[in-house]
């Protein structure tokens, strides 16, 4: 295994790659070749008798022969030394020390807000940071990070100031609302790896962050302006029909703005003007009978990024339920189901079967009502598994329960959800993605059928089954929200493609997520607005519309221009980057010397 050697310091010089010194082995090799050549190369002449006889040498003892210092020899040695210089990267020690500055650029869209002077906070930051980078020495290093839920390294780690300036010139804020913590943490981590202190990290934003870590410098280049934009938008579908609910937040001076609803490019509805502050507006007319709606805030606004949302029509997730119960129990169950939305009752179930028998149908959940014989009535206290979807919001106060199962008779793979004393009242068993929920109770005796726990329990089962149906739980999400989706039973992984997948400079990349045991996938905040494609086995399956929605995103009124500086940090050891000239000069010198050496050698022959 190759022994790793770090840079070697020799006073004012540093040898970046000590292994390159092996190139010096070329020197004795060249001398040996010349020494050998001086004895062997034949040369055809005439009049050999005219040449002087060689200088006589000692007949015994050490015999020392001189190597002729020909031009070719000197040039070959020069080529070898130049090549060694290139391999070992010998350079002044001053090139090995410098500052390592981590710059975190606030990548939130609000930095693109148009300021009274016609520019933006981002443009001012590009100028200000460009000046700062121009003041750095070539040996200094810069790590340029764009903030985000997942920060992006725009230059570096430990790029040269010129590289950072090039990346900075291309930077345009593009991220929805997010916290800056991840970007700052990354900058601190990267600079700390090179030995720099926290004082080498600089945050560039439109205002000084209130929770700025100690020792982190800040450049704020914003200016307060009044703005308004969407803070939230939802497409609701329920028994009352389709409607949009949007929330508009204005910061600074209120500006009257109207909302236009467009369907397939045509305006179908216009709202009354907003009055400033926070406005919640519900729009129902013209919604429906389409898959996509565009809501736009009309009116003068310095920040257009949050003035438009696109909403996709959510699917109605109907739970198909079949009942196979004794005639005495069925009405009680039907009464509990009657008030629940989003379900159908039929005899051939695909989603949920409520029965008294234990049957197994792949793809179907089973709610089995099976009172245990001979058990005692229980009044409580009831131990309810809080946090479990099936036991959510259940309260057994005042409930008389009959039919509970003694705990020792519970199947080993069953998980008790409600129990009282030694009796299990509700238990769940998993069979792949299917679940078998067993209610050990007799609804006709005791007070269960009349107790509020009964419809709540049935509603929980239906809601859990609905949540487990394949598809997106919500097709419209904010960029900083997670998304839960369930894959079809045959799928185990899903491919999530960003809106600009395949285009050059895409901020996001296509990612494959694997499903958990229930077939569910929890997508992290996607961070980029647009229509994300969800694919199964390479084929489009669902579309997830992501909008840059957050009331803080449009808050430009709090912007300011201020700088928080810290003491100039000490220099640290930085990784040296050879400039093109430093790369080329030794190589060109070596090549030139080698070519001239060949020419002189050929000429000599």
């Amino acid at each position, binding site marked *: 295994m190759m022994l790793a050697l770090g840079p070697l310091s020799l006073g004012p010089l540093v040898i970046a790659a000590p292994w390159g010194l092996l190139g010096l082995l070329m020197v004795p090799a060249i001398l040996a070749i010349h020494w050998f050549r001086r004895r062997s190369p*034949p040369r055809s002449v005439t*009049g050999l008798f005219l040449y002087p006889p060689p200088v006589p040498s000692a007949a015994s003892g050490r015999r020392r022969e001189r190597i002729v210092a020909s031009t070719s020899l000197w040039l070959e040695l020069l080529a070898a030394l130049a090549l060694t210089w290139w391999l070992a990267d010998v350079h002044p020690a001053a090139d090995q020390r410098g500052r390592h500055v981590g710059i975190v650029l606030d990548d939130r869209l609000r930095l693109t807000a148009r300021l009274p002077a016609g520019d933006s906070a981002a443009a001012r930051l590009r100028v200000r940071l460009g000046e700062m980078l121009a003041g750095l020495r070539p040996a200094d290093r810069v790590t340029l990070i764009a903030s985000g839920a997942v920060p992006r390294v725009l230059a570096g780690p430990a790029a040269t100031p010129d590289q950072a300036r090039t990346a900075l010139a291309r930077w345009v804020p593009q991220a929805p609302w997010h916290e800056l913590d991840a970007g700052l943490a990354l900058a601190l981590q990267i600079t700390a790896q090179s030995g720099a202190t926290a004082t080498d990290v600089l945050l560039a934003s439109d205002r000084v962050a209130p929770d700025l870590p100690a020792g982190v410098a800040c450049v704020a280049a914003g200016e307060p302006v009044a703005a308004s934009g969407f803070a939230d938008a939802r497409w609701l579908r329920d028994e009352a029909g389709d409607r949009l609910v949007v929330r508009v937040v204005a910061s600074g001076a209120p500006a009257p703005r109207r909302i236009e609803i467009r369907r397939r490019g045509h305006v179908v509805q216009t709202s009354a003007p907003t009055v400033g502050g926070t406005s919640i507006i519900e729009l129902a007319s013209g919604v429906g009978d389409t898959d996509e709606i565009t809501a736009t805030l009309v009116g003068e606004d310095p920040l257009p990024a949050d003035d438009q949302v696109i909403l996709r029509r959510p699917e109605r997730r109907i739970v198909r339920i079949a009942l196979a119960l004794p005639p005495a129990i069925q009405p009680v169950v039907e009464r509990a189901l009657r008030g629940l939305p989003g379900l159908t009752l039929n005899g051939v179930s695909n989603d949920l079967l409520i029965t008294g028998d234990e049957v197994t149908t792949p793809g179907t959940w089973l709610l089995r009502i099976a009172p245990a014989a001979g058990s005692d009535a229980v009044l409580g206290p009831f131990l309810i598994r809080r946090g479990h979807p099936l036991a959510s919001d259940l309260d057994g106060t005042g409930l008389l329960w009959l039919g509970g199962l003694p705990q020792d008779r519970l199947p080993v793979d069953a998980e008790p959800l409600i129990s009282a004393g030694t009796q299990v009242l509700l238990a769940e068993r998993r069979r792949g993605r299917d679940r078998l929920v067993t209610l050990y109770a007799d609804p006709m005796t005791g007070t269960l059928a009349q107790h509020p726990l009964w419809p709540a329990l049935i509603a929980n089962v239906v809601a859990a089954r609905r949540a487990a149906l394949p598809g997106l739980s919500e097709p419209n999400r904010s960029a900083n929200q997670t998304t839960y989706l369930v894959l079809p039973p045959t799928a185990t992984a899903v491919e999530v493609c960003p809106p600009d997948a395949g285009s050059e400079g895409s901020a996001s990349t296509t990612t494959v997520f694997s499903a958990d045991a229930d077939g569910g996938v929890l997508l992290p905040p996607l961070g980029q607005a647009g229509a994300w494609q969800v694919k199964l086995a390479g084929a489009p399956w669902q579309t997830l519309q992501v909008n840059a929605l957050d009331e803080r995103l449009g808050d430009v009124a709090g912007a300011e221009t201020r700088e928080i500086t810290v003491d100039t940090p000490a220099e640290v050891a930085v990784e040296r980057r050879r400039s093109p000239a430093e790369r080329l000069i030794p190589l060109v010198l070596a090549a030139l010397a080698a070519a001239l050496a060949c020419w002189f050698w050929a000429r000599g022959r």
Partner: protein
Amino acid sequence: MPAWDEAAVAGAATRVRLSVDARRRSGQGARLGRGSGASLEFQDHRAYEPGDDLRHLDWSVYARTDQLVLRRHRQEVSPRLEIFVDESASMAASPAKVALATAITALIATLAEADGVRPRLWLYAAEVRRIDSDWRAALRAVTVAGAAGLEAPVGELLPGAQRILISDGLCPGGGAAVVRRLGAGAGRVCLLQILTPEELTPLAVGAARLEDREGGHLDLVLDAAAVTAYRARLQRHQDEWRAALAGRGAGLVGLRADESLAEAVRRLIAAGVVEHRAGRA
């Protein structure tokens, strides 16, 4: 040997002719010699000495002055020419060296024919061959190879002939022995020494094994000091040739292999080996 440039040789032959020292010649010929002879062209008078041919007495002078005065006429000579061409391996040091040697040989032979003389060609390397017939064919057929033959014995030489040796003259024994052998009974003897630039000044290439084209080798550090020593030794070698050739005519005429035929002819004119034709100077 490669073919020489016939056109260049023919062109040079129209401008020059061989120089002839009639004092060292004998026999009747088509050219007027520098000595007295039996031609119709009057040369001068001299006092009669016993034994002189009475047929040459100028009776008109005797009638006027009562003095016996001999009338002398220019001698008519027929020059004899022998050309010795070195075809040893050393002459192949460079193509230009071979080419110039061939061209000079052809030029001199052509000039001899123009003077009505059939040139006799001697080619020698390890052994010596005499060419009496078609010297052109013989010159084209030879190949440079073998050891130097300057010191090899030659056959019967023409008495009183002018002898021209075309060679690099790099014989370890020096030029004295060669000149003694070739100069016996000769009219004139000269050496046209053709050397390449590197034979004049070797390159300081450092350590090398020097392999002589005609045999032998030497391991030597060929540096500036060795080059200086070489040049001094070459100078001494050429001085030996010059000393041996002293009083025998043009002596040693140095020619550079990288020069043109025209430049070589100018050197031959300067050395007196050839001369401008009348009206061509």
